[in-house]
């Protein structure tokens, strides 16, 4: 009676939802080459999501303006990883089984680590710009075209000991896999150059806003330099460190270039030094100048290194499809032959393990602006 009607109604409602869910899956008849992208549009690394998308969108526009890939249009299917590996896995599964892309572009260590095995199993190339050393090791379908901590840490260690001539280093990093590896590198390299790591603290990026407990312990270790690495928490940490009277030299990586850093940390971050993939927007190099001009026209701002990195990723993958074919295996074969590709993010050659070796410069923040301090040695 009423109960039965309710049951029937519920079944019909469910049927409706199944139909609606399936509706969207109609394969489109139009011929198009698709690439996947799993990027952090939301979450604590959203700065990187915005920029990488801008870079790859511009590259796609250029490829299609030049007639596409052998006449076929190129399209990138973007999925939000939300800075969360779990979300990335769902997104990756969708890209692989529904969109059937031959390659997926991504960024961030946690996300990459979670989706690379899926790519490996489904023979889909995953090209990442994450910074974990050795991230492509052991995976045939994983590639990286960016610098890793293997490049950044030695450069920073050298800078601290040779340029700053400081010996006491405190490290504060977001709890993560890349932090473990970076720390291991610091621990093995820094003492060799005569330095001492006086304290190490970690924090949980998502959960914490008050870092004073860790900073208290760091302060007690009397460091000369303080290296901070994470995402959105970084400017807050630097701010609180200054408020607590920690006078150590602030050090970091290109995370310091995200826009809210100056807004939140303001004067606290003045005079900080950081490592950055060799990428100088003001370089007179013709490739850089052309690229920056086009980027500025399209987006009204200067391109930073990750936009350029993903711009290169699209170009490389488009070349792979054009020269070898529209499948994970074809893309992979092509990438392994790439030598001295003149990318805007640097000259690219893929090593047999899918990784690259790129250089890192030292930059600084002076008068609220980002300046090149010293080129890589």
């Amino acid at each position: 009676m009423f109960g039965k009607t309710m049951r029937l109604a519920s079944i019909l409602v469910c049927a409706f939802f199944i139909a609606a869910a399936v509706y969207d899956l109609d394969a489109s008849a139009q011929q198009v080459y698709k690439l996947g992208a799993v990027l952090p549009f939301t979450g604590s690394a959203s700065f990187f999501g915005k920029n990488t998308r801008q870079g790859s969108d511009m590259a796609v526009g250029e490829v299609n303006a030049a007639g596409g890939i052998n006449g076929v249009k190129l399209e990138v299917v973007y999925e939000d990883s939300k800075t969360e590996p779990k979300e990335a896995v769902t997104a990756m599964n969708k890209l692989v089984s529904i969109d059937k892309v031959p390659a997926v572009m991504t960024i961030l260590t946690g996300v990459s680590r979670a989706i690379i095995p899926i790519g490996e199993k489904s023979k889909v190339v995953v090209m990442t710009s994450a910074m974990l050393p050795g991230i492509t090791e052991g995976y045939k379908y994983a590639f990286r075209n960016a610098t890793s901590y293997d490049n950044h840490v030695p450069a920073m260690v050298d800078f601290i000991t040779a340029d700053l001539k400081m010996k006491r280093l405190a490290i504060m990093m977001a709890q993560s896999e890349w932090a473990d590896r970076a720390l291991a590198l610091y621990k093995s390299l820094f003492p060799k150059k005569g330095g001492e790591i006086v304290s190490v603290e970690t924090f949980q990026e998502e959960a914490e806003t008050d870092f004073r407990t860790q900073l208290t312990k760091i302060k007690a270790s009397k460091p000369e330099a303080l290296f901070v690495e994470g995402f959105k928490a970084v400017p807050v940490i630097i701010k609180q460190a200054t408020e607590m009277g920690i006078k150590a030299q602030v050090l970091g990586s290109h995370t310091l270039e995200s826009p809210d850093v100056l807004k939140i940390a303001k004067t606290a971050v003045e005079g900080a030094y950081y490592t950055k993939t060799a990428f100088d927007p003001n370089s007179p190099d013709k490739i850089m100048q052309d690229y920056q001009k086009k980027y500025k026209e399209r987006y009204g701002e200067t391109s930073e290194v990750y936009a350029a990195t993903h711009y290169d990723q699209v170009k490389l993958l488009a070349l792979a499809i054009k020269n070898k074919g529209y499948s994970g295996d074809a893309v992979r074969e092509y990438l392994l032959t790439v030598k001295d590709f003149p990318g805007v993010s640097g000259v690219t050659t893929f090593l047999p393990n899918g990784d690259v070796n790129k250089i890192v410069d030292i930059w600084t923040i002076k008068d609220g602006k980002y300046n090149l301090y010293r080129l890589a040695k």
Partner: protein
Amino acid sequence: MEILIQLIANGFVAGWIYAPVAIGFGLIYSTTRDFHFAHGLVYISAAYLFYALYVPANLSFLLSFVITSVAAVVLGLGIDYVIYRPLKKQGATPFIILLSSIGVIIFLENLILLAFGPERMALSKADITEGYQFGGVYMTKMQLLIVAFSILLCLAAWLLIKYTKTGRAIRAMSNDPEMAQIIGVSTNMIRAVVFSAGSALVVVPAVLVGLDTGISPQMGMTMTVMAAVAVFVGGVGHLIGAVFASLMIGMIQNLGVFYVEAKWQDLIAFGILLAFIIFRPMGLLGHRA
């Protein structure tokens, strides 16, 4: 040694952040026995409203604060009038009230997400300066203000409860709701009082914390849980207990970090909660029923 004192100072401040929120939650729970889970969302909504008024809309600090306070009270009262009361009239059990509260939380937290995005917001417009030094221990201006204002608020609440007629009615309802009704306490009026007062109490901590460390949407749920823990550990119906428990939790969390890594802070707080619930459910100041 210096670290220890600094940690105690930090813990002291942390405790005073929880205290007014805990008192608010405690007032509501002890008089109505309703688990106003959404209390923490009132807290974080107030913080976000203040942010919206003070930063993008650039209103004066005072104006932003006043508007936020009024809005918080309206929100708290609104949740009671629109959601809880009609359900109670229909004979809802506490479980149902809790569920509706959860529905409110989900709705509000995502409204904030939609409007402001998931990232942390900083409210402070001031320059960054070194904090004040007290013999090697640093405290920022905000931290000192948090302590000062929270103490004032808690004191005010305590005085009102102890010395006013309304306060007596609240105490009567806490001890025995049925008896209170029989002797003529207007439960509806008291409900309105505790929801307003409770919601008003959260505004100062919300604004100050926003100015000090920043806010994010997830902080609402965290604060509800902390407030609930403080109330139960302190003893339901004993406001001083809630304050005491808030300070205790704040201090133990921060001191705990001296011995173990910072990531275990939360665990310590909940370990304390579980220990109390199991071994001393009446809380610090409560009596065995």
